[in-house]
């Protein structure tokens, strides 16, 4: 008889009990979910329970200066920052995204993507509305380009996030989908509580954050995946309305503070697909001690405002990966191309396949105790 794992058994039980055939009417069967939040319409204009005094700001004679991210907004009374969720009221800066996420999901950790961080686990993923960037290709523009006042949100204070995460048996909480730097206070508090419960915290971000805020964040965050969107200042400005230099600085800080770091580079045709630029980017990573950080070259799909472009050719992604490996990046992957061989992990020393991935599942794992089972080389990552 074929044996099944405990996790698989639980999953089959859940599926078997409810999912064979849905009842005739939609929406029935909702109670099967072990997490059942009530959506809350929080369009309150006043500062209510979903706000908290913001970190990292100073009162200047000409207004309030937010110093959390490099946008460094200077705000007057009633103004909100570029991120749309920090507002000034009565001379103080408030975050209005506190305990007020608009997206709450459970995802495989590989979906973020994290390939070297507690693989094959699930991550309890939350996002509040707002972003420090204005990317033309944003997948989640409906939450990143609006304020929490415009979204339908959940009433989910940090304590409840941790509870729900435990209830859903997730091993980590991911701050993701929109830009977590914009809901920093909420994420920080949640991460602090989660850490006490031995739940890991993962940060999926554009990396656009100032050093003091980042250093404080690193005390509670276990892993970060940073979108390094290009290696050209002008492209950053046109594509995302951001700057490159602070992101490079943030990468160094994440690494220096001991946070597990993976990097995503979305290869957009005619925008960020210059192989020469990718080579410069990889050289910089290696020269700055980030050669052990896995780099994911992911395929672009036309989204949001960048719709008059093709998808990225797979060959371009493969070339980018080759360039990265040649430059000295030890682990480079091809993303958003299901079934591609470069989804697997190859030991940087002996070159053998040490993790064979099938989608978000691990089919074969030759990493034992963090080392390659073939050549005993330490494989960088957090393996469980």
């Amino acid at each position: 008889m074929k044996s099944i794992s405990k996790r698989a058994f639980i999953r089959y039980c859940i599926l078997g009990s409810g999912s064979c055939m849905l009842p005739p009417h939609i929406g029935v069967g909702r109670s099967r979910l072990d997490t059942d939040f009530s959506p809350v319409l929080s369009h309150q204009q006043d500062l209510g329970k979903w706000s908290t005094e913001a970190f990292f700001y100073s009162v200047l004679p000409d207004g309030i200066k937010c110093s959390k991210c490099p946008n460094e907004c200077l705000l007057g009374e009633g103004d909100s920052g570029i991120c749309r969720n920090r507002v000034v009221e009565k001379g103080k800066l408030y975050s209005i995204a506190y305990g007020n996420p608009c997206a709450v999901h459970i995802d495989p950790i590989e979906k973020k993507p994290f390939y070297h961080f507690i693989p094959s686990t699930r991550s309890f993923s939350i996002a509040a509305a707002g972003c420090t960037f204005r990317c033309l290709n944003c997948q989640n523009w409906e939450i990143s380009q609006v304020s929490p006042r415009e979204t339908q949100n959940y009433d989910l204070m940090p304590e409840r996030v941790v509870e729900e995460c435990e209830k859903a048996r997730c091993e980590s909480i991911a701050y993701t989908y929109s830009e977590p730097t914009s809901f920093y206070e909420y994420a920080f508090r949640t991460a602090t509580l989660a850490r006490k419960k031995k739940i890991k915290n993962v940060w999926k971000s554009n990396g656009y954050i100032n050093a003091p805020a980042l250093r404080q964040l690193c005390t509670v965050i276990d892993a970060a995946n940073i979108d390094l969107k290009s290696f050209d200042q002008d492209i950053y400005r046109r594509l995302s309305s951001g700057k490159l230099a602070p992101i490079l600085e943030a990468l160094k800080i994440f690494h220096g503070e001991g946070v597990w770091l993976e990097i995503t580079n979305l290869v957009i045709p005619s925008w960020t697909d210059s192989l020469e630029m990718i080579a410069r980017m990889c050289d910089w990573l290696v020269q700055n001690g980030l050669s052990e950080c896995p780099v994911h070259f992911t395929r672009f799909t036309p989204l949001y405002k960048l719709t008059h472009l093709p998808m990225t050719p797979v060959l371009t992604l493969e070339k980018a990966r080759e360039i990265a490996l040649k430059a000295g990046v030890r682990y480079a992957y091809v993303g958003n191309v299901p079934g591609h061989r470069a989804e697997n992990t190859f030991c940087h020393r002996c070159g053998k396949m040490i993790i064979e991935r099938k989608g978000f599942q691990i089919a074969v794992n030759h990493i034992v105790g963090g080392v390659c089972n073939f050549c005993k080389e330490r494989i960088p990552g957090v393996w469980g």
Partner: protein
Amino acid sequence: MKKLSLVRLLPVIVLGLSSIATQIFLLREFLSLFQGNELVVGLILSTWMMLTGLGAFLGRFASRWALNIYLSSLLLILLAVLPLSTTICLRVLRNEVFQIGLMIGLMEIFVSSFIILLPICMISGFAFSHFVQRLSSQTESNETSRVYAWEALGGVIGGALFNIFLISYANTIQCFALLGMINLSAALMLVLQSPRKIMGLGIILFLFIGCGFALFSDLDRTTRAKLFPDQTLLVTQDSPYGNLTVTQQEEQLNFYENGVLLASSNDAVRAEESVHFALVQRERIESVLMISGAVTGSPKEVLKYSSASLDYLEANPWLISLTEQYTEFLSDSRILCIAEDARLFIRKTTKRYDAILLNLPEPATAQMNRYYTKEFFLDLQRCMNSDAVLSLGLLPETDYQSKQASVINSTMVQTLKSVFKNVVIVPGTRNYFLASDGGLSLNIAGLATKRGIQTTYVNENYLDDYLLQRRSLQILDRLSTSASLNLDFQPISYYQQVIHWLRYFSHTYWLMVLVALAFTSLLLFLNFTKISFGLLTGGFTATSLEVLYLILFQILFGSMYQIIGMLVTVFMAGLAAGTLLCPKIVPHVTMKQYGAMQLLLGAFSILSLIFLFYLGPEIASGTLIFAIIALFLFLIAFLVGMEFFTASKLQFGSVPLVSSKLYTTDLVGSALGAGLVALLILPLFGVLKTGIIIGAMSFVSGCVALLKKR
């Protein structure tokens, strides 16, 4: 009325021909550069008419050059050169002015279409006024209505020649080169009558050679390649359904329709999701109907079900041949390709299917919306086996469902539920709606394994059924059960999609209000009278009804582009006939008759729509309905033509003033009709109420004409 020789009327005919052909082809260019929804079409058409009206208005100040032959020829030369040069500039500058690959916002579309159309439309409007003054000076009478009629006749010829015939055989650049030659020939006739011919002849000859070069060179391909940077253009074809282009980048092939990506090769996710979410639902799949989407590779996914045969339906035969030429997706003998509109096919087929896969773009236009209505779903249900599954996809994947997305999803779920017993949403790269009278499951990956289907993406490695259910129920949780249904005659979904699209740019419908206010201000500026009010509502009613009839015809019989071209031509013929025959029908025009014409127009609008509303395909054949719609269009245009003639006789003032004022008012009314009906009134109020609103406009202006003292 003095007789005018055909030679004297030729420039006017060429003007009409030129206007309609330029409008048809430039609009297609705009749509492939911008976004092809009703809002953009309405905005561009409104801008077009507004600028033409402005040109006609300015034309009144050129009366002192009424007989200047050089001005007449110059206008024709400009009308020859501008469409061609504008098209080339549009293609070359698209990625220079705007960011590469960027979807352009409504405000940018308005500004850029305003700048681009300014020379063509202004000159076209100016030419109308100028030719009225020229012919009036020659006959010493007001020739406004005659020029209007002959320009409309030119439109009939242009519509027939370009929209019905040339559209299938020539690309845009070739059509414009040919149009340039026609305009240059007319200019040549004028120049030959002038005392100093040499310079004029030289310029015309030079431009003729230029047009000849454009006609026989590869200019269309070279300029279109500029729209696809870093890609090798393999083929580009202008079909009556729009432009199709295939490019190559590295190993990848990209298929575009009107500049928007249909598919890139090696996209397993999309190909698999659109097929397997539905097909894994049943143990045995024998007959599948797929409506569009073969370029994604989905047919080969269907054939993974060993007993399956596939009927592949694609309205655009050009797309089928490109798919066959560049892929192997349609090469299997189990696939039957049918080049026909889905609505027509479904209505007449006797086959029964186990699954129907609707792989069409979203219902963002009235034309696309008719594949997402309750009536169409009922038709589909009739050719489905008892527990067959229907699948369709809407909106790209996001991690959050916005309020507008909830509205769109609610309408679609409720519309499907009004026909099928069970409806579920499977979140993938799009939200896939599955509908069936049999059971439906969200255990997609589990079922794929059970059925033994080998897939790259739709399997347990990538999809966790528990998480999929969670996401699906989160979407359903936020849907309204009281959402309006999407109906043929009340197409609410495309209105919702347009609102959703506007959110990309933080625009709202305020822009439309702004445009409407601009029109109104323009009219007030033009000294508003009851004559101009009548003409305004006449233009509004005629264009609104034209738009409504075209939408109705498409809803009932599919998007037969040539037939639509024929209907537009019939409309122009009605305008010409009404204007030319009015003096014979009403020899001595009075304000009372003018008012009565408007009342008649109002009554006819309402009654004709009621008649068409109840005359479904069950009652009458397509040919009969086409004949009825053509007749109605002709009669309405005939009435508006008569109105224009009457107004031109009743309006006091000099020839330049009368011609420019009436023409501008007519165009502004038409612009309002084109914009407001398609965008706002029809989706919100449905066909019948729209008919009443349109009719009421003419009733009001008719009553004003009858009751108010001069």
